[in-house]
């Protein structure tokens, strides 16, 4: 049988989440702008080091979902499409997504650092620091997806992999889904680690220092590891994709836990508008730890509003990070929007979208108000 040359279904990019790289870049620009104004180039470098992997993590699912998560992938699983072909298509989409995310991030960094009046070498150094993480991610993110394919399966009883699944899952999630909790952050942590010697070398060069031999060796080792991970990824993926995808679908149906979920919060159950209640229920069940994130955001907003010292860059960064932590997981609701709209289409209800967005934005408004209070008090 001839091998099909193109698989349009697999190559399709879902339009949902298209704004996420822009939002992440804007947040990075704001944080670096605030940080650089307060503490100059060293603060800007630290923020690039910390925020670029975090921003890439926010947009990770957009570019890696072609490896295991996409509906199209599950739908085409019965077709005789070789894992190498599946990996190749997903990797191409990942590379395009990563390039787009990096372009936005580089723009955000340049914009955020502009008020500092850095010279061209220092600004280029910041951008290259960020680019180093992006290049490393080109290898580590597909590797993370491949590890998820390999370990996201039922493992032989008593094997190290099975024990690891149970240990890391803490008994509250499906063992086969455990790897999906750790692989995304793990792959970006690894990217940050591999980029570190390169970033140090760049910063030393910008500051007029010579390249240390040890640092050069570390750079070469990091490059070799990155190439090795990229080469190993399709091999690992091939050994797991056909089983990992069905397990992942099962985990998605049960929200990676038992089929009977926790009872909804009382206040949600008491919401009179049934369409809005549906969205709130989905937010509570489909996003991670919503109550914890909300409490963190609101408590920090109160603390920030009450402090007497001038607003610092770190506080702005923390506020923005908590806002992002509150808003970004809600993108899960967008993914399920089509099914929700179809289910409500023939019912006599108003669309809950505007009210749901207002509820979601309210805690962010509280945080912004608290920052505004501090700024106004500082000026007074």
């Amino acid at each position: 049988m001839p091998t099909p040359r193109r698989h349009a279904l697999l190559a399709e990019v879902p339009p949902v989440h298209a704004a996420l790289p822009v939002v992440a870049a804007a947040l990075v620009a704001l944080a670096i702008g605030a940080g650089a104004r307060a503490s100059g180039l060293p603060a800007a470098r630290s923020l690039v080091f910390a925020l670029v992997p975090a921003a890439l993590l926010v947009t990770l699912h957009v570019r890696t979902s072609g490896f295991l998560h996409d509906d199209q992938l599950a739908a085409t699983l019965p077709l005789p499409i070789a894992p190498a072909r599946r990996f190749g298509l997903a990797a191409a989409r990942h590379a395009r997504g990563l390039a787009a995310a990096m372009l936005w991030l580089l723009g955000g960094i340049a914009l955020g650092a502009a008020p500092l009046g850095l010279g061209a070498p220092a600004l280029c150094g910041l951008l290259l620091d960020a680019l180093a993480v992006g290049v490393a991610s080109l290898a580590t993110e597909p590797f993370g997806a491949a590890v998820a394919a390999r370990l996201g399966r039922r493992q032989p009883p008593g094997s190290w992999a099975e024990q690891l699944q149970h240990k890391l899952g803490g008994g509250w999630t499906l063992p086969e889904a455990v790897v999906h909790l750790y692989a995304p952050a793990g792959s970006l942590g690894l990217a940050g680690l591999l980029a570190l010697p390169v970033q140090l070398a760049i910063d030393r060069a910008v500051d007029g220092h010579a390249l240390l031999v040890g640092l050069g060796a570390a750079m070469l080792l990091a490059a070799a590891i990155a190439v090795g991970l990229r080469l190993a990824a399709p091999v690992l993926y091939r050994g797991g994709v056909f089983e990992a995808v069905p397990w992942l679908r099962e985990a998605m149906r049960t929200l990676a836990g038992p089929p009977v979920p926790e009872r909804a919060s009382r206040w949600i159950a008491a919401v009179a508008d049934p369409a809005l209640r549906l969205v709130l229920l989905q937010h509570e069940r489909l996003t991670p730890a919503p109550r914890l994130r909300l409490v963190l955001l609101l408590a920090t907003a109160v603390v920030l509003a009450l402090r007497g010292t001038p607003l610092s860059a770190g506080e702005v960064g923390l506020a923005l990070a908590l806002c992002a932590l509150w808003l970004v997981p809600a993108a899960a609701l967008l993914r399920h929007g089509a099914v929700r709209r179809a289910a409500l289409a023939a019912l006599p209800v108003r669309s809950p979208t505007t009210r749901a967005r207002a509820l979601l934005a309210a805690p962010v408004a509280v945080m912004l108000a608290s920052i505004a209070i501090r700024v106004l008090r500082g000026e007074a």
Partner: protein
Amino acid sequence: MPLSIAGVTKRYGSRTILDGVTLSLAPGETVVLRGPNGTGKSTLLGCVCGQVVPDAGTIAIAGFDLRSAPLQARRHLRALPQEVELPAGITGREWLEIHADVFGAPRPSDAEVDPQLRPLLDHLAATYSVGLRRRLAFAAIALGPAALFVLDEPFAGVDTDGRARILEVLQARLGDGAAVLLAAHDHELGEIERLSPRIVALAPAAA
């Protein structure tokens, strides 16, 4: 009049699917749409449910025009689509409660729920089998008073017991003055006979 369809036309590009369809359903009446694949049964049902917008013609449910009075029309409509997709993260009980609130009906007690669904009510609905999802979707639309039931292949994937329950509920609703419009295949007609239906055959529209 539970349903009044007048001159409904629907085209996809240059292809005409429905060409001036006119149909009325009286209280207590069942109409079964028959026809080969591609004759527009699901398109017509989609038009009645407001999920497909016709190019021409009017549709009124319980006297309310679907376009000019969309909420009022939908208050009297109960629709079961061909493929039931339930929102993620919702239990069967929550799905029933949402529908009860939407339709202004009392929330059903466990005893009132389809016995096959009862032990699974607190499970996530996405974990149900195809047949159980269909039974849950039907149980949800059966809550509260209604003028019109629109069912697209309601028995697909449903076992004998489930089909009997659906028919039993529909018979009761017909007795209350509701009308039923459904699309079904020939092999299902024997069971649907219990509803004494009028058969309306759709033929391929001229291109």
